[in-house]
């Protein structure tokens, strides 16, 4: 078991009205790991997980979950898989706790719903109907419904959408515990922070195919190797012009604006580079409000891979 992936997707193709939304996608997710499928809207993330959940038959390629075909072996697979849909899938007229208890009845050996409700803070709105819940409350209820069967594979489609920070922390904590207990967790997200903090493995998807994958450090490291350099980002209290700093640092550094009040310096960043930048700002009486050194974020990698323009 530890050697065979919990989810294995090979050459997946899915077309809507002749247009390929997923186009030759390969993906594998291991048990005891959180795998984040990261990509912009319309990249094919939701369609991919819906093929894994047995909700859509693939047009080409193979999908195996715990070695089974999600469509043909659905009856055997459904007790082993938990699903949180992007649009929730909760009936609007049902009370929160009633929905959780109802789905629990579908399993022979479900999670104790009292304990689960307490874990995810559902008790405060147990008797409230779904249509009157806030976005964060709905997401917590949908997560509870996804895990109440104590699944071996969990698919979470944009689990943090519309959540307040407290809800998000509770959700992330539960996702980590599921992983530590050996479940394979596959989550789609366009939140870098979520992928960076939570994922053991990140798969970057765009235009229906995988364009990069690896652990977060791996993705960041390949990026640094490619550039042979690190990046220093300074945020300032006032607007500054990049031109003066460019002259001061010389041609071996690239200086560009991130915004009117932040500059990114790319090159071989040494202690004296930092000193030069701050001294130059001090000479202009500009206060540094934040300084990020060395490590590019997953967001930088993501934007480099998928492009910075709106689509």
């Amino acid at each position: 078991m530890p050697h065979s992936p919990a989810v294995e997707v090979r050459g997946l193709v899915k077309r809507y009205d002749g247009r390929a939304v997923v186009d030759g996608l390969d993906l594998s997710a291991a048990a005891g790991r959180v795998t984040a499928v990261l990509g912009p809207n319309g990249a094919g993330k939701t369609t991919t997980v819906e093929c894994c959940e047995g909700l859509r038959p693939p047009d080409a390629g193979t999908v195996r979950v715990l070695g089974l075909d999600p469509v043909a072996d659905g009856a055997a697979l459904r007790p082993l898989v938990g699903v949180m849909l992007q649009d929730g899938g909760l009936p609007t007229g049902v009370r929160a706790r009633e929905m959780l208890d109802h789905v629990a009845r579908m399993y022979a050996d479900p999670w104790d719903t009292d304990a689960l409700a307490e874990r995810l803070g559902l008790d405060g709105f147990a008797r409230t109907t779904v249509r009157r819940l806030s976005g964060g409350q709905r997401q917590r209820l949908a997560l509870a419904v996804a895990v109440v069967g104590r699944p071996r594979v969990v698919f979470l489609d944009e689990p943090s959408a519309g959540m307040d920070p407290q809800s998000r922390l509770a959700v992330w904590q539960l996702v980590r515990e599921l992983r530590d207990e050996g479940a394979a967790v596959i989550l789609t997200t366009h939140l870098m922070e979520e992928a960076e903090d939570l994922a053991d493995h990140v798969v970057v998807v765009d235009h229906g195919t995988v364009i990069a994958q690896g652990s977060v450090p791996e993705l960041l490291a390949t990026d640094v190797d490619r550039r042979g350099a690190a990046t220093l980002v300074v945020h300032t209290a006032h607007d500054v012009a990049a031109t003066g700093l460019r002259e001061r640092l010389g041609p071996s550094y690239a200086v560009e604006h991130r915004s009117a009040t932040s500059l990114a310096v790319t090159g071989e960043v040494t202690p004296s580079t930092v000193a030069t930048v701050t001294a130059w700002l001090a000479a202009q009486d500009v206060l540094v409000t934040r300084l990020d050194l060395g490590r590019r974020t997953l967001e930088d990698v993501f934007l480099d891979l998928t492009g910075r323009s709106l689509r």
Partner: protein
Amino acid sequence: MTAPAGHPAPGRHAAAPGARRVLAQAGFEARMILRNGEQVLVAVVIPVLALVGLVQGTFVEIDTAGSSRVDFLTPGVLALAVMTASFTSQAIATGFDRRNGVLRLLATTPLGRGGLLAGKVLGVLAVEAVQVLLLGAAAVVLGWRPGVAGVVLALVGVVLGTAAFTALALLVAGTLRAEAVLALANLLLLVLALGGGVIVPADRLPGPFAALASWLPSGAFGDVLRGALLDGSLPLLPVLVLAAWAVGLGALAARFFRWH
């Protein structure tokens, strides 16, 4: 058998037995309908008021062909009530559940698509049991005295009518937008109730309606229940017409129903 409290340890990963899953879904569906005020109004209150009004009131002239008004009208009002539960309520509920992803979510649980459909049909039958008991009680108070054989045959007719109208509900709910389902389900119920041969038999309708209505599922259903409860026998042609609708609409729903 439950997990240690608050601890996400892997479970036995087994589904609950199939019958338990379907019964749980049926109870869930029936509760949702009977808790919704509008649904109760349409499914129970309006049919009961219609029965009392039509039987007691003299504002509508009805040729009862020798039967008492309550004997003549009760089968048609029962048919109408069954249509509200199996068609209108079910179409609206399924249409919105489809839009909200409820159908897809439940299809990923051990219930599955087949269990969900079975649960829906049983849920409809449970609501109909409530309707039949309340309407039957109201009719008895008004002087209705049906024969035992007629009641048994009528129950067969109710199952057949439920099959046809649930199939129509799923066809509408599985192909149209939720808002369009809401509008169409209500409109169709009103049209069929007034001119579809449910309460007023097809052959008493004016001109072209008379010819058309007996071939509609509504007219056939009304005739089946009137045959059972007034004559104590199932009329062959309306039974065949209703069965043909059930098979045809079922095949269309199976072919065109979209889960997304």
